[in-house]
């Protein structure tokens, strides 16, 4: 391809761009479906990213809920454990008027 032909092609291209016929002249209409598909892909990418962000946002909220539940569980555990003490039980039994106390002798065992 010589220089004259390149100049002519460049001039024609500029003119085609100015007329809005550049893509048609390149026969891009033949790839219309592919262009649409590319557009869809880009749109899907953006939409998926937004959805991922939403899911991660929900995940962060759920993390807070789980953390709250963990704290609640730990506190209840502590409250419950505090009753598992001989002197506490003795005091409670005494308050209720019970005569139950520490056994007089160790429990008998059945030989296996």
């Amino acid at each position, binding site marked *: 391809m010589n220089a004259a032909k390149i100049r*002519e092609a460049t001039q024609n*291209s500029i003119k085609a761009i100015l007329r809005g016929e550049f893509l048609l002249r390149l026969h891009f209409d033949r790839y219309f479906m592919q262009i649409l598909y590319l557009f869809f892909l880009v749109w899907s990418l953006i939409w998926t990213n937004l959805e991922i962000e939403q899911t991660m*946002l929900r995940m962060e909220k759920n993390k807070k809920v789980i953390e709250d539940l963990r704290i609640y569980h730990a*506190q209840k555990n502590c409250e419950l454990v505090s009753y*598992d003490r001989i002197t506490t039980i003795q005091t409670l039994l005494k308050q209720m008027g019970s005569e139950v106390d*520490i056994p007089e002798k*160790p429990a008998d*065992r059945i030989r296996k």
Partner: protein
Amino acid sequence: MSGINDINRPKRDGTGVFLFWLYVMFLFAGVVLIGRLAYIQLFYKPNPKLEKYISARVRKQTTDPIRGSILAHDGRLLASSTPMYQIYMDCTVQKDVFEKKKDKKKEKEWQEKARKLSQGLAETFRDRSAEGYYSLIMSGRRNNRKYVKIGTAIDHGTLLKLKQLPLFNEPGYKGGMIVEKFDTRQYPYGALARRVIGYVKNNNTLTNDRVGIEGKYNYALHGKEGVIWMKETDNHGWIRNYDSTMVKVENGYDIRTTLDIDIQDIADRSLRNMVQGNPDIEGGCAIVMDVHTGAIRAMVNIKRNDKDNTVGETYNYAIGRAGDPGSVFKLASLMTLIEDGKADLETIVPTFRGKWKYKGQIMKDEYLMEMNTDTISVVRGLEISSNHVFRYLVCQNYEDNPKRFLDKFYEYKLNEPFDFDLQGLASPVIPSPGSPQWSGTALPSIAIGYTVLETPLHIAMFYNGIANKGKLMKPYIVESIEKEGGIVESFKPKVLNGSICSRRTAEKLTEALRQVVLDGTGRGLKNAKCGVAGKTGTAQITFETTVGNKKKVVYKDGSGRRQHQATFVGFYPYEDPKYTTIVVIYSKLTNKNFYGAQYALPVFREIVNDTYSLKDEWGNEIKSRGSVPKMRTAAIQDGSDGITEVPDVKGMGLMDAIYSIENCGYRCSYEGMGHVYSQTPAAGSKNRKGETVTIRLR
């Protein structure tokens, strides 16, 4: 490109020209856009001040690790971390908005909500009236206060309740609620073993802000902070930015101790009662140790606060206070004498009627002065805790070579500040010839437990060695470091000396200690629930006082007041020892006499009796005879199922049978024990409700 060369010129018209220039404009804008994109992508370096406006906001988030828990031997929780919350209130929220809009109605609504909130706060915190809280909030609103403290620190459950109240159930910028979270240490068993568990204040290593297990194992309990980066989403939420670097948070390890909460509780109650009930007692400690491993099952330290006369775990006497052990040390002298073949339990010693002259000094023994005898056996001397017997034997046999006598104590590790699991183990002192503490009377003094300094833990360790047939175990209190139930590092029992004495000597000493309990100063334990072998000890403690403007260390002040250390140490059941226990009581300055048998022994007895009753390992073994009827897997019937007839309870246990019968509307009477083998009336009978069904069990 062939198509481009075939251009046909269209005719120009007005609309065409307009569209053409519009097209040119868009084209130009497109070119500029593409050029700009390329420039920003490749060359542009934004101004840092502007950058924050054109890029997604990010923030660094530090995650505090969860501090590890401290567990008892069986996994019960001794200390755990949970957050607490302090509430503040921004009283100015929405004030400007309402003022700008001149919306008095909305302001009134807000104030009405504040009134209801005040009611809820008063009910929750009970530190102010509802009116008081309302005044606080409204005063804050008038004075533009954005950080008004509400109540005291609250737990998570209360926080959730507060978040239901008016205003606090709205977002912060509307309701003004500010929540500050901080971690606190929870101790489910209250003050139990508090000194052993310890604490860490401000993570300061320079001062004594690290106490007990919390202090010593802070490196494992603390964990490591994590760092993550968060980015802002388009709708102003914050999500994790996975493109950034992060440091994963590592929660602290759990520490499993050797403590047995039940024994700790029993020992705590006994010692606390003793200290609380006797105003002349300054404090005391008790240690319970597993004979075969040296694992500490309980370590109680009770000290009186003279300001308000309350008692609590504020000082670790068990490891922190080394003092003259007194008569409990005589056993170490006796062990040395027996091991060296210098004496035996039956050796006869002249009494000198309680007045023995040694190096020009008359050494008195009050017990022997009262006894009308010229000789006494060693075992009897131990029973009545005679000072003379041990002073005499030691001086007679080691006067020429005191080093030999003292070297034996070093073998017993009675001078060793070994690496213990808690900080602050006091160093024991046994003076040697030539040292500043050594004097002409040092040898007889050491023989009876004076001039030496020993912690209660060292004495317990030594007696434990005798109970363990001469094998000296190192006391330890931390069993393992764990992560989520799995063991990261395990601490096994360690032997300090494989044989401090022969098995025969250990058996002789055990027998002698048993005699002390049966017919000596330890008689108070004669009727304990299991056989105890042990020794009382009473020592006078030196203290500083001013005599004629000079400070002096004395045993007795001008008013005749003295300070004592009363001890009882022993092991049980003496036939096959399982636990070694020491109880030490420290008196205040008093004119009273403090004897080990009077103050330490009752605490020891309570520990022995209750521990023995609770441990089924000492229960009688029952041999199973015959066969127990097999349980049938019949479903329990109850009245709510619409059953109107007598239920079939054969094969059931008593509780299930009574439940089933009474729920069907009948009364139950029973005979025997075990499982139901017959019933009257028979199952399926349609009797009147309220009638009695008799069941027989075997």
